[in-house]
């Protein structure tokens, strides 16, 4: 790394080191121990996750990153309780997780708002399910809509909102239940670049002001470094933990840091982990041979 003029991604300023020490002192919210996940598949069994272990402390922001097929989604769905694991343990506040529950909020990549409910009723859904009265649920929903700045749209239906707004409502709908951890499965993956960066700052704002721990899945390196305290890097086929990186970029984060040396060093390291140069050739996805394309236009009609 040093020959490219960048510092090592392991180098941390005193402030950053102190901050990580403080984080480590906080209680563990989520602990994953030797998690295995195997699927029955046509050609025998597929191993999606192999021996995954890590811990997340209270109010930590952790990103999970990895090439496609590394089991990111399987991991987060297992943590949410939407899929059963084959072996190992998932402990939330020291208690094993069994099925989905209100203590783990989830934001999906696709728009998962209930289309038949208005924005306000969507946010009220969780409180109503846990037996709150209509009025109490409505009060909580209003608070959250205020917080995400969508009070004006309380009575709109999801299809009337933009993609970014919908994901804000989805975040509010998950947080109104006061979960211990917020699981986010590539929540901004379907948004355009501009909306996406606005949503990232917005999410950091929410996280700063609320007692919430976040596990965030993404395949975008910049997004992971910009948001995370630590980045869990997974290797595909089967999904295994490669490294759990402490991001040396100081907080508060701003988009200006995208070109800081710490940022670039971390990005270089992630790049090297996810796209190892020797493995490139025998990959089964897009990195293989380029298809040859026949000329379908007039030979003289050149664009270059």
């Amino acid at each position, binding site marked *: 790394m040093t020959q490219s003029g960048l510092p090592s991604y392991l180098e941390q300023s005193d402030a950053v080191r102190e901050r990580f020490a403080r984080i480590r002192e906080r209680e563990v919210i989520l602990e994953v121990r030797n998690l295995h996940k195997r699927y029955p598949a046509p050609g025998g069994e597929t191993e999606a996750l192999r021996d995954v272990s890590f811990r997340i402390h209270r109010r930590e922001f952790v990103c999970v990153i990895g090439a496609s097929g590394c089991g990111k989604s399987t991991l987060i769905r297992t943590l949410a309780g939407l899929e059963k694991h084959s072996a190992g343990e998932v402990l939330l506040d020291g208690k094993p997780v069994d099925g989905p529950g209100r203590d783990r909020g989830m934001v999906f990549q696709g728009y998962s708002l209930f289309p038949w409910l208005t924005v306000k009723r969507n946010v009220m859904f969780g409180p109503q399910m846990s037996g709150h009265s209509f009025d109490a649920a409505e009060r909580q929903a209003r608070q959250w809509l205020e917080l995400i700045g969508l009070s004006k749209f309380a009575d709109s239906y999801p*299809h009337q909102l933009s993609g970014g707004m919908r994901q804000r409502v989805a975040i509010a*709908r998950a947080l109104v239940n006061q979960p211990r951890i917020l699981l986010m499965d590539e929540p901004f993956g379907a948004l355009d670049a501009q909306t996406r960066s606005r949503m990232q700052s917005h999410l950091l704002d929410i996280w700063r002001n609320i007692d919430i721990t976040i596990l965030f899945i993404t395949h975008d390196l910049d997004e992971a470094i910009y948001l995370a305290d630590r980045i869990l890097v997974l290797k595909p086929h089967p999904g295994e933990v490669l490294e759990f990186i402490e991001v040396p970029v100081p907080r508060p984060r701003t988009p200006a840091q995208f070109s800081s040396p710490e940022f670039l060093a971390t990005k270089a390291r992630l790049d090297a982990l996810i796209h190892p140069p020797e493995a490139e050739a025998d990959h089964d996805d897009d990195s293989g041979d380029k298809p040859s394309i026949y000329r379908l236009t007039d030979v003289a009609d050149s664009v270059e």
Partner: protein
Amino acid sequence: MQAFLSRSGAWLKGPASSRLLVVASFVLPVLLWALVSYVPFLWHPKVLVEEVGGVDYFQVGMRVDRAEFDDQVKEMREAGEALPAGRPANPIYLPAPHEVASALYTAFTTAPEQRGAPWLHESLWHSIQIIFWGFVLSSALGVPLGILAGTYAGFSRLTEPFIEFFRYLPAPAFGALAVAVLGIYDGPKIAIIFIGTFFQQVLIIANTTRKLDRTLIEAARTLGTRGSRLITRVVLPGILPDLYRDQRILLGWAWTYLLVAELIGTSSGITFFITQQARYQHFDNVYAAIIIIGVIGLGSDLLLAALGRKLFPWDQAQKRG
């Protein structure tokens, strides 16, 4: 390809021209009917006899083939007898639009020819009741079964194979059986509508339920929804607009079973009216009754479509009808 198609079809776009096309889709067939009825040289294969002349078997008002009429004219001319006269006409089974229109009117205003026979509106009302009860009974069972089969894979495997088999059995085949079990009046007719609708209904609604986005159910589960509330609070409202559309299509199918159903046991309703009128060769009345069935069918569907837009403001697909 899509772009090419839409560009060449550009003149068929826009709200004004689309309304025009809707009107045209009704006007064009009527226009064709009027042309065939009123323009003598277009078809008119018969001659309506107005004067018998010397032909002994002709009668005034009789329709004979044109070739036969011409033969008779030639024969009479050679025999030196009075010539028959007539004008070109269509066969009795194709009345002109104005005849059907007046039949539509008189069917409601004048008493039926046979004493004790039901008026047209009485026949219609009877038919509508048969449809209504057949469809309501079928839905009362078919909708819950369909939703359960669409939600639980086990339940689907338990019920759907048999239903899949049963739906290939033509409903009218159960006519005799239905009469034996339910008597000769309305019971077997409602049963035929039920058999014709129910089995399709379960399969269609199960399929609609299965198409509900799994993410919605998963989202609800992470928000603390469990058990039967997943069905009542997520699955049911989630599929409701599609379910409503399915029911509209199924109601249309129920109408197609109506005429068969009404022939079972004692003939009744609009079918009785139609067969009776056809027997007396009152084809204008037959057409009037057929048109009324179409108007009721289309009218109720348009009404239900408008209701759907009111009921499901979040559903974009309702706007397309």
